[in-house]
């Protein structure tokens, strides 16, 4: 059996313009390097490697996850994240989550929590959303933040641009968002 650890990451399918290209590339390289380093020093399980890599990507403002996420119609950040274990088929995810610095770490905590039935013998949830997910984060000691700390200046500029067009369409045209804004 090979003892090599392999990692591959992505920064999204969509439009990667030249201005941000170098920032995206350096974030992806940093994610690979730090996830492998973590695997050799701490936990080398595939789930842990995935969690580490995605945490680095979530912290980067040029990527649409965690800090720097696209903003909702209300100008807030609400994140989705999931992780799946190939060995056991276990899955954990969070949705429409606010106020948690690294949503992937909470998704991983949901996966671990759902492995065993609860004291009443019930299957535990594999997905938690919104305020329930946030409460679970606090109960698991996962870092929570003031929701606005997840909003990046860059995301605000994008939001202001398209929100004003939405609110004040010129010549009564239907506003069509750029394709990239229509993708997760």
């Amino acid at each position: 059996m090979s003892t090599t650890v392999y990692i591959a990451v992505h920064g999204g399918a969509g439009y990667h313009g030249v201005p941000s290209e170098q920032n995206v590339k350096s974030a992806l390289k940093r994610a690979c390097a730090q996830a492998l380093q973590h695997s050799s020093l701490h936990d080398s399980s595939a789930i842990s490697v995935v969690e580490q890599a995605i945490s680095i990507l979530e912290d980067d403002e040029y990527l649409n996850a965690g800090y720097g996420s696209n903003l909702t119609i209300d100008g807030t950040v609400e994140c989705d994240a999931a992780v799946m274990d190939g060995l056991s088929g276990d899955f954990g995810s969070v949705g429409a989550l606010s106020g948690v610095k690294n949503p992937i770490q909470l998704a991983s905590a949901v996966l671990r929590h759902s492995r065993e039935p609860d004291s009443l013998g019930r299957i535990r949830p594999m997905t938690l959303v919104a305020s329930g997910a946030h409460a679970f984060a606090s109960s698991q000691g996962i870092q929570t933040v003031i929701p606005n700390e997840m909003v990046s200046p860059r995301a605000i500029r994008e939001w202001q641009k398209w929100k004003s067009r939405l609110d004040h369409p010129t010549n009564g045209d239907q506003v069509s968002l750029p394709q990239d804004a229509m993708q997760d």
Partner: protein
Amino acid sequence: TVGAVAWDNEGNLAAGVSSGGLLLKYSGRIGEAAVYGAGCWAQQSLSKRDGMACSISGAGEHIVRSGLARILGEALQSPESDGGEVDIHQVLLQVFNQKFTEPLHQRGELMPNAGVVLLTKERGEDDEAVPRLWCAFTTESMAVAYASTRKPSPKVSILR
């Protein structure tokens, strides 16, 4: 959206995905990154000689409707894979052509787009499992990077 797939030193696979979702989305809306079978999938055989892990990005509502990550897993687990070779390139072409080349509703909707990073296990020399990395997308581009403890210097590319 961002994502990762990994193969650890015990031969186990895992996949993950994380997303801020759509710009100006309704509060409370979730995309594929929160839904089982849609944004990521990982599976492996008991012998650990076969398996896949994938992470997906794209138009959330279409990806959730198609359960894209899971159907890729199921397509790659077809009977042919018991000893026969699955043509992974063909599977990706077929799934993407079937699911992501026509708008689901003809109301001038934007084309449904998706991209996937897929890590598979293949049979190498003396039947040992070796990794192979795939990327497929119908969008303009997809940003990917990969590395290993054997070749730790990451390779990165914005595929177009």
